[in-house]
């Protein structure tokens, strides 16, 4: 057991830090620091710089354009990206659909889609939830019926993050309604420029437009866009969700939120003393900071286990629960710290709090995560 960072790992950290300092556009950094929304162009510009360096998809196998980083190096990379105020990774292509294609797709699919993700030609979104299928995802009603060498897809997908930027969507659709609900589902890649696809914005309680509803009406999709086997989509969906949960823990991003919270608290002054000098408030922040520190070590341990054993497994549920609870604690304190300034949407303080209520709901609500752990880890 060696629990310290090696000289090589420290050097790697310095290299990442220098890269961000040199390459992150000042305007994007400024938006990140202010908490302003990023445009598609902001994201794409940053993705292209990362791609030029070979760092856009660290988790992929090297032969597809990934890195050979150790789990610790990946962790360091995520930490530095967050601390350097770099835009978050948009996961839908790089961390969701790509691992599924790599694990279950055919060679043509790998050759077509993976380079287009790296070049930012494709922006993917995730067609999972439906108006009637949230926690009970397997009850989904979207149909894909075989029609010659096409599928004819009909249904409604919802809560789709950044669908307004996307040109591709991966869809869970029912190809066989006659078998049990998990068995008849397939994983299908859909070009959003196909006739019959419409995107309707959903404005959330923070006033932002992040999520959307996507309608699919008689959308004709070539059968070669099926990933893996027909009817095996539920297996791929679960595989993807486990990857997603480790990402949605947002551990590195929470260190960014923590810095922001301290900044908000430092600017609140009463009689010349800032809120950070107030022991009671400082200790509230400290409590969350400590839990976040524990979680970051838990994530390192989980990554190390992943290295030893392949897929992340149900442990990622635990990281997701705690990680999102910490995000919510941090943004709650941010709203509190702002005082009267939090009423002003320009400060974003309360808006972040509203926005992050999503975190314990998406990617499988925290209650569903607890059910998963109870069943699959504890055997209850």
């Amino acid at each position, binding site marked *: *057991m*060696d*629990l*310290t*960072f*090696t000289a090589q*790992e420290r050097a790697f950290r310095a290299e990442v830090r220098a890269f961000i300092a040199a390459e992150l556009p000042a305007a994007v950094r400024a938006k990140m620091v202010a908490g302003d929304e990023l445009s598609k162009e902001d994201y794409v510009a940053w993705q292209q710089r990362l791609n030029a360096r070979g760092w856009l998809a660290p988790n992929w196998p090297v032969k597809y354009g990934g890195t050979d980083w150790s789990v*610790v190096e990946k962790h360091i990379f995520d930490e530095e990206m967050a601390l350097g105020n770099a835009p978050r990774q948009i996961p839908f292509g790089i961390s969701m659909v790509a691992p599924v294609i790599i694990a279950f797709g055919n060679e043509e699919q790998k050759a077509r889609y993976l380079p287009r993700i790296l070049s930012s030609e494709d922006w993917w979104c995730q067609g999972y939830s439906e108006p009637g299928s949230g926690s009970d995802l397997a009850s989904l009603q979207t149909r894909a019926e075989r029609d010659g060498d096409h599928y004819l897809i009909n249904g409604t997908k919802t809560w789709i993050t950044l669908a307004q930027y996307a040109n591709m969507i991966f869809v869970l659709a029912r190809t066989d309604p006659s078998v049990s609900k998990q068995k008849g589902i397939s994983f299908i890649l859909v070009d959003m420029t196909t006739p019959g696809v419409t995107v309707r914005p959903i404005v959330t309680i923070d006033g932002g437009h992040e999520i959307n509803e996507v309608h699919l009406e008689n959308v004709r999709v070539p059968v070669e866009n099926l990933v893996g086997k027909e009817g095996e989509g539920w297996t791929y969906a679960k595989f993807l969700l486990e990857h997603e949960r480790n990402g949605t823990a947002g551990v590195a991003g929470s260190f960014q939120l923590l810095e922001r919270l301290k900044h908000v608290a430092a600017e609140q002054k009463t009689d010349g003393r800032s809120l950070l*000098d107030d*022991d009671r408030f*400082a*200790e509230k922040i*400290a*409590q969350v*900071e*400590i*839990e976040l*520190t*524990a*979680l970051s*070590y*838990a994530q*390192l*341990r989980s990554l*190390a286990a992943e290295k030893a054993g392949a897929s992340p497994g149900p442990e990622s549920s*635990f990281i997701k*629960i*705690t990680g999102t609870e910490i995000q919510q604690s941090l943004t709650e304190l941010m709203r509190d710290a702002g005082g009267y300034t939090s009423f002003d949407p320009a400060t974003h303080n309360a808006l972040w709090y509203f926005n992050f209520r999503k975190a314990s709901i998406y990617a499988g609500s925290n*209650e569903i995560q*607890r*059910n998963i*752990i*109870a069943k699959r*880890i*504890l*055997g*209850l």
Partner: protein
Amino acid sequence: MDFSLSADQTMIKDSVDRFVADAYSFDARTRLADSEEGFSREHWRTFAGLGWLGIAFPEDRGGFGGTAVETMILMEAFGKGLVLEPFVPTVVLGGSALAFGGTSNAHRELLERLIEGELLLSLAYAESGSRYDPSIVETRARREGSDLVIDGAKIGVPFGAAADKLVVSVRTKGERHDAHGITLVLVDRDAPGLSRRDYRTVDGQRASDLRFAGVRVPADAILAEVDEGLPLLERVLDYGLGALAAEAVGLMTVMQRTTLAYLKTREQFGVPIGSFQALQHRAVDMLIQLELARSICYYGTVALLEDGDARARSKALSATKVQIARSGRYVGQQAIQLHGGIGMSEEYAVGHYFKRMSMLELALGDVDYHLHRFVALGRQSAEKPQATETKKLVTAGVA
């Protein structure tokens, strides 16, 4: 960074797990707790024979060159067995004080005797007016020639009755709050003027309150430097916090495991109670808290391995204690609740783990104390970055 155990560490883990399995059945533990000294001298000789007493000390001090990782491995196993032998007071607290603060060949020889199992120590730093703050010291020592003469009182000294010598913090200069003017001295158990009140603690261990009435110690009883004992004391306490964190992980592991087994076997309404979602989610939260505790324990251990900047180390160990205590409180309380009436029974083990965890929460400082220290150290670091000077404390004068 690598979380897997080395071959040597695996051997240590196997041997301490075997010891706990063989020697620490719940009945055997109960008998030992009820015995005169509250622990077994025979077990202590076993510890010495297996090399555990010297495992974490440097080889040039007569130890076996291990680190805080080896201490963590031992302490986690001790937690799992509710082990009673005074490993923390003697080895982690007293031994660290000698190893980091020893200034003479006599101190070096004391550490060798400790490692051989011939010397028991304890640490007397807390006072009735200091709560957990080691910088508040009202026990005074005045100079008489080259001797120090001590008057005052200490409380909550772990296994004080068994200790051959006590490491005592005394004020040699300044007022009760001053960081400077604190000195650590070694006091013999039978020194004239020293009196003790011994008691069995609520978690089955032993402790003593001490009274010093003109207790005279010679100059070579002083560890580190006169008036500058606080950095050494803080360092020793940080090592103690690391050890307690690992013990807590052991305690929580057993409570979590025992409770889960109970949920699967206890039936009510015709089904195992673990089939109820309200209880399942509590069981999951117990597991989460255990995992957070284990993770922060690694973090604290890393801070002890690095042990450069004293503020960074202390801040990390305060973080460790806060998380350990919060997790331990949750796991312990739920362990009792999910066991129902049986959890309240003195004849059943889980209550004893709960009691040890509950008191460990307070030992060397509770959540409030360490949250406060964490914040204060963070502010100091922001104001005035500190050079890595504490390592120099490691005994210049030892041959």
